[in-house]
């Protein structure tokens, strides 16, 4: 085990992200650059690894270090953990590099007792104190799967152990093996002083993208929930507002957030997804990471970051994968189209593809409509084997309940139908009879029959621009025409063999794909 099992994330951690976990590393980086981040410490991945072998011994060995960490957070916040008059509450998060199903992710508002609730009620309001405690008890029961101990220190110890243990949950282990991730090692744990988006006026929580990760437009994008905490925003159960509403409500804080987003983009040379809380008008950044993005956005953002001087040409080309370009060349629902249509329901994307038609809630009615030549979407509470004839005639499937392994999901994939499952109760009634588009890639149902379109290497300006770049950087220049040897395929083998034969210029049906492959194999 490293000599430092617990590391303060005060901007001077000077440890690699393998040890701190990505969350911890990001927090330390933000602190180092003077951004407003609540004080935090990290229990390293070394400890997580050790815990898997000797859980009890490991916890006992590092407990004093954890207590030192808590002391440091108390000093930094002028609050005390476990009692008033100014009690400190903590969040406990896993620091796994990727969030995995089955891994415990986030536990908020830890550190409650009756006394703590009273002290918080006196400091804030009784409503705020009881709302926070309710959130804590619910998520503790769900995540640690035990009743809440009365002693806040026992809560902390159990929560840390639960994060470490969740690395070995069957679902997390299956996920790692499925995705070819290393099963060795373990997760880090980040313990951070809570800030409160549920502290009344001028408070709230949100997620901010430094640029739009769907369309790739250079515009601020995100969600904001006045009076909410971070878990409300990601849960999808509460209606959030677009980030622009924050500008109207708290323009100075919004400007501060925008400028933090710009700094983080410069520091990381990538578009960031930033989780933030505003407590009583004060901005706090909780974590930041490279934004997940659509294929459209991957291309547009790479070109923008190049134009802004944040990355060079070679890096811009590395940010776009052949898979992105291949996806763009297939007919799909373009983000611009998607976002101008009404969002009628969201659920889990269970069967890939996009399909439009009129929604029918009854199998017999769906079959009759299909016999009349209508495009049919089947929407059901759930599906079971006797719905199969309705699923067969449908172009898309929607259900109210069920997950990624539900009957509807399994059969939709088997039949090649676009499917969104688990959209919540009431959608059967609200959708029946309407013309809808089922987006089985995004997990959305949108209003109307939306057209699909594809990008092309010849005519889409972004892809032409990228191909021009590639011709300056790639060891193999591919052209749409000209007096060069012909590359019949853009597979890795074909590209390697062309380069091995000493060709520097070739003609290809997909010049950009061929060059991205050439850059990939030669890097």
């Amino acid at each position, binding site marked *: 085990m490293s000599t430092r099992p617990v590391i303060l994330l005060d901007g001077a951690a000077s440890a690699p992200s393998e040890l701190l976990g990505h969350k911890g590393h990001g927090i330390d980086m933000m602190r180092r650059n003077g951004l407003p981040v609540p004080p935090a410490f990290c229990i390293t991945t070394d400890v997580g690894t050790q815990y898997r072998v000797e859980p009890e011994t490991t916890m006992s060995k590092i407990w004093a270090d954890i207590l030192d960490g808590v002391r440091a957070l108390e000093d930094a916040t002028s609050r005390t953990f476990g009692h008033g008059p100014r009690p400190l509450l903590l969040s406990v998060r896993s620091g796994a590099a990727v969030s995995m199903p089955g891994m415990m992710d986030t536990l908020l508002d830890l550190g409650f007792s009756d006394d703590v609730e009273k002290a918080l009620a006196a400091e804030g309001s009784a409503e705020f104190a009881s709302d926070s405690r309710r959130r804590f008890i619910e998520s503790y029961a769900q995540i640690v799967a035990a009743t809440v101990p009365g002693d806040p220190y026992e809560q902390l110890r159990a929560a840390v152990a639960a994060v470490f243990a969740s690395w070995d949950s069957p679902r997390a282990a299956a996920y790692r093996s499925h995705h*070819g991730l290393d099963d060795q090692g373990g997760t880090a744990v980040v313990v951070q002083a809570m800030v409160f988006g549920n502290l009344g006026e001028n408070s709230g929580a949100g997620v901010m993208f430094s640029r739009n990760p769907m369309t790739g437009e250079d515009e601020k994008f995100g969600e904001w929930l006045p009076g909410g905490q971070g878990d409300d925003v990601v849960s999808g159960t509460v209606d959030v507002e677009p980030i622009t509403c924050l500008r109207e409500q708290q323009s100075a804080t919004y400007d501060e957030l925008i400028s933090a987003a710009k700094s983080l983009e410069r520091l990381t040379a990538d578009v960031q997804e930033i989780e933030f809380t505003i407590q009583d008008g004060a901005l706090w950044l909780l974590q930041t990471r490279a934004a997940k993005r659509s294929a459209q956005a991957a291309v547009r953002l790479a070109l923008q970051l190049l134009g802004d001087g944040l990355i060079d040409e070679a890096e811009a080309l590395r940010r776009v994968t052949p898979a992105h370009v291949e996806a763009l060349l297939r007919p799909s629902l373009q983000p611009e189209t998607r976002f101008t249509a009404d969002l009628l329901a969201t659920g889990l994307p269970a069967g890939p593809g996009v399909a439009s038609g009129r929604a029918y809630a009854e199998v017999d009615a769906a079959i009759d409509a299909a016999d009349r030549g209508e495009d049919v979407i089947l929407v059901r509470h759930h599906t079971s*084997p006797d719905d*199969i004839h309705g699923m067969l005639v449908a172009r898309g499937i929607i259900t109210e*309940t069920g997950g990624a*392994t539900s009957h509807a999901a399994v059969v939709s*994939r088997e*039949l090649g139908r676009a499917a969104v499952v688990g959209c919540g109760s009431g959608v059967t009634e609200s959708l029946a009879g309407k013309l809808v588009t089922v987006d089985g890639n995004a997990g959305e149902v949108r209003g109307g029959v939306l057209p699909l379109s594809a990008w092309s290497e010849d005519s889409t300006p972004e892809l032409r621009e990228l191909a021009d770049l590639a011709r300056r950087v790639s060891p193999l220049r591919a052209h749409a025409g000209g007096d060069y040897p012909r590359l019949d395929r853009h597979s890795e083998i074909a590209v390697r063999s062309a380069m091995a034969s000493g060709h520097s210029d070739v003609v290809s049906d997909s010049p950009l794909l061929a060059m991205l492959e050439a850059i990939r194999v030669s890097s």
Partner: protein
Amino acid sequence: MSDLAVLQAIRLKGRVNREDLGSDLVDDLVGAGLLVDGPTLRLSPEGRVRLDELLASERSSVDSSVIACAYSEFRSVNAEFKALVTDWQLKNGQPNTHEDPVYDAAVLARLDEVHQRVTPIVAAASAELPRLGRYAEKLQSALDRVHAGETMWLSRPLIDSYHTVWFELHEELILAAGLTREAEDA
């Protein structure tokens, strides 16, 4: 086959070809207004009511604790079965192209484990409800075909694949335990 067996078989499949059913009770049931005849057979609303009565009467003569126990054990293996079917269909979140024999073999090995776990559950339930015994045969038959390399018998709809039979069995156990699917989802 009894009226109950015929009506229930049609309910579980939604619509059935006469030939596939192979029962000489069909004309009587159509005549009694319990089935709607056409290119395929399906239940009439009266047929659904009659089926519910027959199932309720069947339920009243069984030891409900045995069925409740079988259903509870089934639920514990159900999640693993559904997960393995999903892993068969998807690899790394993308459709499984079945080009990785090691991956596929690992998933199919899990099917053998699931089959070993579900077999005694079906046997216990059939001791109370002999009608359910045919699910043991149908599961075995689908498994044999998968073992013989006909992997479409794992999850393909419309044929009595392992997944199709499994789901019908699931519905039967929910009904036999006196529950409803809606309540089980909630």
